């Protein structure tokens, strides 16, 4: 095949048709002025998404204090009594009615710097195995934050008699604990963290909350 025969195929695209060529009189600061407005529009959109929307969220005060006697549902049949006056960040009260029929969800509530997060899940192993895994996972995922578990594990019991285990951890500026309860294939894991002063001050409330975790048997509810 001669060069002459293949030359057309190898011809480069004429300069004026190349995607990266912009006529001199169409440039501003070296950039194609036709692309400036729409591309800046997308940049503004990114700014809105990343900065403005979160700022609006932060600017809205949110106060949803727990009233005496209110119960949170973590999962159908799994409940906890949060301390009176603590702020509910997310979670579903027993009295909340969802259109979708969702009966429960993870709960997060706090007081001052103290935050308790609760998550219910299916789990077929022992409570010690659950905390082993929760501890390993939390430490692994929060290594950058400097999380260190103390290694001292204690037994706790809910008022309904369910056995749980608890282990404290420390971070450079906070401290807290991981706890777990397991009852008949259903588990609740709890992470609590706050400034050291708040952890001590809220100790009684937190203990009462852990003690209030209840697993209702499916057949009992039916």
């Amino acid at each position, binding site marked *: 095949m001669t060069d002459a*025969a*293949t030359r*057309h*195929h190898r*011809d480069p*695209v004429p300069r004026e*048709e*190349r*995607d*990266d060529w*912009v006529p001199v009189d169409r*440039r501003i600061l*070296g*950039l*194609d002025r036709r*692309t*400036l407005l*729409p*591309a*800046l*529009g*997308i*940049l503004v*959109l*990114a700014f*809105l*998404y*990343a900065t403005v*929307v*979160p700022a*609006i*969220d*932060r600017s*809205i005060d*949110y106060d*949803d204090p727990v009233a005496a006697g209110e119960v949170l549902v973590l999962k159908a049949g799994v409940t906890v009594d949060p301390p009176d006056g603590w702020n509910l960040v*997310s979670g*579903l*009260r027993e009295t*909340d009615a*969802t*259109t*979708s*029929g*969702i009966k429960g969800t993870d709960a997060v509530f706090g007081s001052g710097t103290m935050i308790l997060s609760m*998550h219910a*899940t*299916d*789990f*077929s*192993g022992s409570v010690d195995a659950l905390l082993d*895994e*929760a501890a*390993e*996972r939390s430490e*692994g*995922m929060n*290594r*950058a934050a400097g999380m260190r578990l103390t290694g001292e594990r204690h037994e706790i019991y809910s008022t309904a008699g369910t056995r749980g285990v608890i282990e404290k951890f420390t971070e450079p500026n906070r401290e807290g604990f991981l706890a777990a309860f397991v009852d008949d294939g259903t588990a609740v*894991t709890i992470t609590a963290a706050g400034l050291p002063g708040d952890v001590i001050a809220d100790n009684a409330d937190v203990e009462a909350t852990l003690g209030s975790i209840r697993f209702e048997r499916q057949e009992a509810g039916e």
Partner: protein
Amino acid sequence: MTALTGDATGDVDKQLQLTAIARSGYGRPYRIYQPRNLAFWVYWLIMAAGVVRLLENLAPGAPVLTTALVAGVIVFALYTVPFWLIISHVDRFRSVPVKVRVLAFLWGGIGATFGLAIAANDPIRSIYTKLYGQAFALDWSAALTAPFTEEIGKAAGFVLILLLAPRVVRTAFDGAIIGAFIGLGFQVFEDLLYAVSAAAGAFGAEQGPAVVQTIVMRAATGIASHTVFSAIFCMGLVWLIGRPDEPRRIGRGLALMVGAMALHGVWDCAAALSHGTIVGVIGVWILVPIVMFTLLVMGLRRAAEPERAWVRAILTPEVDRGVLTGPELAAVSGTGRERKAFLKATGDRAARQRAGHVLTAAGELAEQIAEDGGRETPATAFARSEVARLR
């Protein structure tokens, strides 16, 4: 006299062919590096932000959620393949170059998902919680957030690609194809994030099943989601803004964009809409795909008209040359239905198969002609000879 008329017709056909090549953008090489185009810098800036946030989301869990991460990456990589092939099959005119497809896919997976949507989704859902309470947010916040943040985020990438490749993105059909690749990227990366989150929330032996369950659920329901939503949305966007060869159709464009967002919203609040009944949820899961695919097919049929006309114009001189017959030209540049009807009419299975090969080779001949700018080259001659060989 006859000869003169024939020559004149040939000249006109050749002119129409060259015009079609110029206007369609077929066969045009695409340059990724365009430093004079602000869209180039914005695209990669948001992609970089997306990579950072992707690592923030996945890296902390990586050492302890290895099973989920590895399983998710492998399964969703495999899951991408058939969808990539299906979209490529729909783009039978090959109007969108591979580099542009890859840019679209990456935008969907990293730019739109992690660079844009993820930053806004949680704060907006939090605002709903603060304003309307926990129960309302659980039921409706996803449906009132994602259709806006995600469809707009995905379409932002389409706008950037349009600015980067204006000669390639010419029609609403191009919008649908690029939108589909963006949606596919979004779907795959979002599913990966969900799979890893599911594993993070599960414990013990459940890590594996939790990932599998998420993968199966997302893969099964994903067929209907982001890929098609974005295809419809971006197709509508092209009609809304108009292109040199795609007259503006504001009503049609808006209808498709709003339709895509509405379907996305209905999909996301299926449980609340059906009051938690299984039958209701399944009903929504059946109804949404039906409406969605109807919209997509109706839109594509209209959107493909300019593409079909260009292919017809590019291949008409081949009829004059005797390379293709009139019915073959009509089939290769026709609708899917016309193509099927042509094949069916050719006779037995062997004849149908042969005719199918000829049509495919004719499509490749059109590509080659466009790539060579309508000039006679050895590559075009070879593509032409392939049509003859397969006949």
